């Protein structure tokens, strides 16, 4: 809602990280400090960070070498001192260093006119006019026309400074109404004058080549009451509340970064539960939630519309999804409610590799920097993976409610732009053509480091009555990571619970980001000849690439040993959807038995020869309350 930096991730141990970063030599702490700036900090966190950056200003300025520092002069009619730390941090967050000069307040004309003034000595390359509503529209005899004329005179003087860009802040709508909804008819009303000025500013700024900082628009998101406190206005002449300074600083920081050419160019979209509701590989074309008649389906359509509008103004769209490519492309080609079509996507990556590798491929294919990517994914695991592996990629924190996805991306202001060029309009087509020419190349990433940091625990227990309904749901719903796709009713599953001829396992994965819920189900039948036949092995695709398969096999073998089992037999029965597990048993060290018949394959593992795989997962035995699974964890 733009009351806090809600699109940035909350770092609960922010202070500890900050103290740790301060212990390091500055040059080695830059990445940590950027991550701290790119977390959901408030007034105090912002000031602490700024204070430390100011104490190391020369090193900090040098560390942001990819963009020329900004020299910003603020000319204001009221107090702005309390905004300065936030402006510096807002620019730093986007990789731009800002040196700031604050002119004594209400000395705009004097500072501009006097060649010996502090302003001219500072030699700014950006001048911001931050004029308060009372100053512009509150005095007796004020008119919109004279206010605009005054501003244009100031702009003209500022533009005489060599190489200087001018930013004009729009007026914060804080003046009281004397009439009401039709205030504009009361031409002497300060409120009406203010509105008229804000309206006229758009065209005047356009004509004069001045950029706007549209706090009138942004303050309406959180409410003017959050931006302006009459008490503080009277006490300290702070028109903008210190509690909102970090928002203001971010808004201005975006503009400054954009002036330095630092802006994001590409929106990378996850598919399942981001572009549509549900999982295409499991739910199929008819089963995904998308389109009219369902509020969640409409929320996903709204995200697609927003992405389409971004594309129309020059943002490149890409897809990064854990899916079989054929499944992933199906809705783009065949679903009637899709707004985005294959032609809108400049680079389409759907596979089972980790997403950091895939984002590298996307950047390389499109020939843009990783620092041009914004990655939108509903899954916190993927978001955190990217934040850790590729800190230069912007990863907005998507709320759990799909209806709020658009605001999260929009409020984050990643795609700040100053002008629309014809090149922008043609860009998506151009990138798509390039992408078709490029072949994908494998890249590697430090996945092990990330997995090690996750503190994963695999909780397991035999089937029990508490887990029964979720087990049955998974057995009947899982299509992709499902070796045999055998379906069983709840009664049949319940019968296995009481049958000593069965080895059953329900598995749940937790990590430091939370609980992934029940993620795997194993059914084994004890056969003559000390053999365990794996009737069912299924797993949720959301935990792919996290060594859960290896940890599960370790567990199966341990259970088998306790039952004096000597051989474990696995079967793969191909379907239209489970191609991804074709080599599952082979990858885990099973030997294939005889040839394939109709694609069916059988596999054998000698328990005595099995060396448990090393994983980053700790295995924990115990019953867990599975009822929470009725609402799938995000």
């Amino acid at each position, binding site marked *: 809602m733009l009351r806090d930096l809600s699109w940035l991730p909350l770092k609960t141990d922010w202070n500890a990280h900050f103290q740790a970063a301060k212990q390091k030599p500055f040059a080695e702490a830059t990445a940590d400090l950027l991550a701290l700036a790119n977390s959901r900090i408030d007034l105090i966190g912002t000031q602490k960070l700024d204070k430390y950056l100011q104490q190391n200003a020369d090193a900090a300025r040098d560390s942001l070498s990819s963009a020329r520092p900004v020299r910003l002069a603020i000319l204001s009619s009221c107090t702005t001192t309390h905004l300065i730390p936030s402006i510096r941090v807002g620019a730093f967050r986007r990789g731009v260093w800002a040196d700031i000069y604050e002119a004594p307040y209400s000395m705009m004309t004097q500072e501009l006119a006097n060649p010996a003034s502090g302003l001219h000595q500072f030699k700014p390359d950006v001048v911001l006019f931050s004029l308060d509503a009372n100053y512009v529209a509150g005095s007796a005899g004020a008119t919109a026309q004279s206010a605009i004329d005054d501003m244009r005179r100031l702009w003209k003087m500022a533009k005489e400074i060599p190489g200087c860009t001018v930013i004009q802040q729009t007026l914060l709508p804080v003046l009281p109404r004397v009439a009401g909804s039709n205030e504009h008819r009361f031409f002497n009303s300060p409120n009406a004058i203010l509105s008229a000025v804000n309206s006229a500013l758009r065209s005047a700024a356009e004509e004069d080549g001045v950029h706007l900082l549209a706090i009138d628009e942004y303050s309406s998101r959180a409410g003017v009451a959050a931006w302006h406190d009459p008490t503080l206005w009277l006490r*300290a002449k702070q028109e903008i509340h210190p509690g909102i300074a970090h928002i203001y600083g971010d808004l201005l920081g975006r503009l400054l970064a954009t002036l330095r050419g630092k802006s994001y160019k590409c929106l990378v979209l996850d598919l399942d539960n981001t572009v549509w509701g549900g999982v295409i590989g499991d739910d199929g074309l008819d089963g995904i939630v998308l389109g009219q008649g369902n509020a969640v389906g409409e929320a996903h359509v709204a995200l697609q519309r927003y992405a389409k509008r971004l594309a129309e103004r020059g943002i490149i769209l890409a897809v990064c999804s854990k899916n079989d490519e054929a499944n992933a492309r199906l809705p783009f080609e065949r679903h009637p409610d899709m707004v985005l079509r294959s032609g809108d996507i400049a680079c389409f990556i759907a596979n089972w590799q980790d997403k950091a590798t895939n984002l590298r491929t996307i950047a390389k294919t499109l020939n843009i920097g990783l620092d041009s990517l914004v990655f939108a994914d509903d899954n916190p695991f993927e978001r955190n993976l990217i934040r850790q592996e590729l800190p230069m990629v912007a990863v907005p924190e998507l709320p759990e409610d799909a209806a709020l996805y658009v605001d999260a991306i929009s409020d984050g202001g990643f795609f700040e732009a100053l002008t629309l060029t014809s090149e922008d309009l043609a860009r998506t087509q151009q990138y798509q053509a390039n992408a078709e020419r490029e072949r994908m190349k494998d890249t590697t990433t430090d996945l092990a480091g990330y997995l090690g940091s996750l503190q994963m625990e695999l909780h397991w227990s035999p089937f029990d009555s508490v887990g029964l309904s979720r087990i049955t749901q998974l057995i009947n719903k899982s299509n992709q990571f499902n070796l045999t796709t055998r379906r069983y009713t709840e009664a049949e599953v319940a019968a296995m619970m009481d049958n000593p001829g069965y080895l059953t396992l329900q598995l749940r994965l937790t990590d430091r980001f939370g609980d992934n819920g029940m993620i795997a189900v194993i059914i084994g039948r004890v056969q003559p000849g000390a053999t365990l036949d794996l009737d069912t092995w299924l797993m949720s695709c959301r935990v792919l690439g996290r060594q859960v398969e290896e940890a599960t096999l370790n567990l199966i073998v341990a259970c088998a040993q306790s039952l004096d089992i000597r051989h474990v037999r696995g079967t793969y029965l191909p379907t239209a959807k489970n191609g991804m597990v074709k080599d599952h048993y082979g990858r885990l060290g099973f030997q294939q038995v005889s040839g394939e018949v109709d694609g069916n394959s059988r596999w054998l593992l000698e328990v005595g020869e099995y060396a448990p795989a090393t994983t980053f997962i700790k295995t924990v035995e115990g019953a867990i309350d599975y009822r929470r699974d009725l609402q799938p964890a995000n």
Partner: protein
Amino acid sequence: MRLTTEEIYSQLTEIFRDIFDDESIVLTPETTAADIDDWDSFNHINLLVATEQRFGIKFKTAELEDLKNVGHLVQLISTKKRA
């Protein structure tokens, strides 16, 4: 929710230490701006805003005009939390 004077001091101390980035700050009823480096008019407003946010209260203009020392501020918070 009512807070004891000790609880108010403890939370206020956290805010002061945070804002002035000084873990050695110990507040007494007699503490004033003269006792803490950097307690200027700029940080004064930050203190008041952070205090309002932490305690979920709002100071009136007149109350701020009369503020004399930390003891006075604690009293003010206490009265507001009781109301």
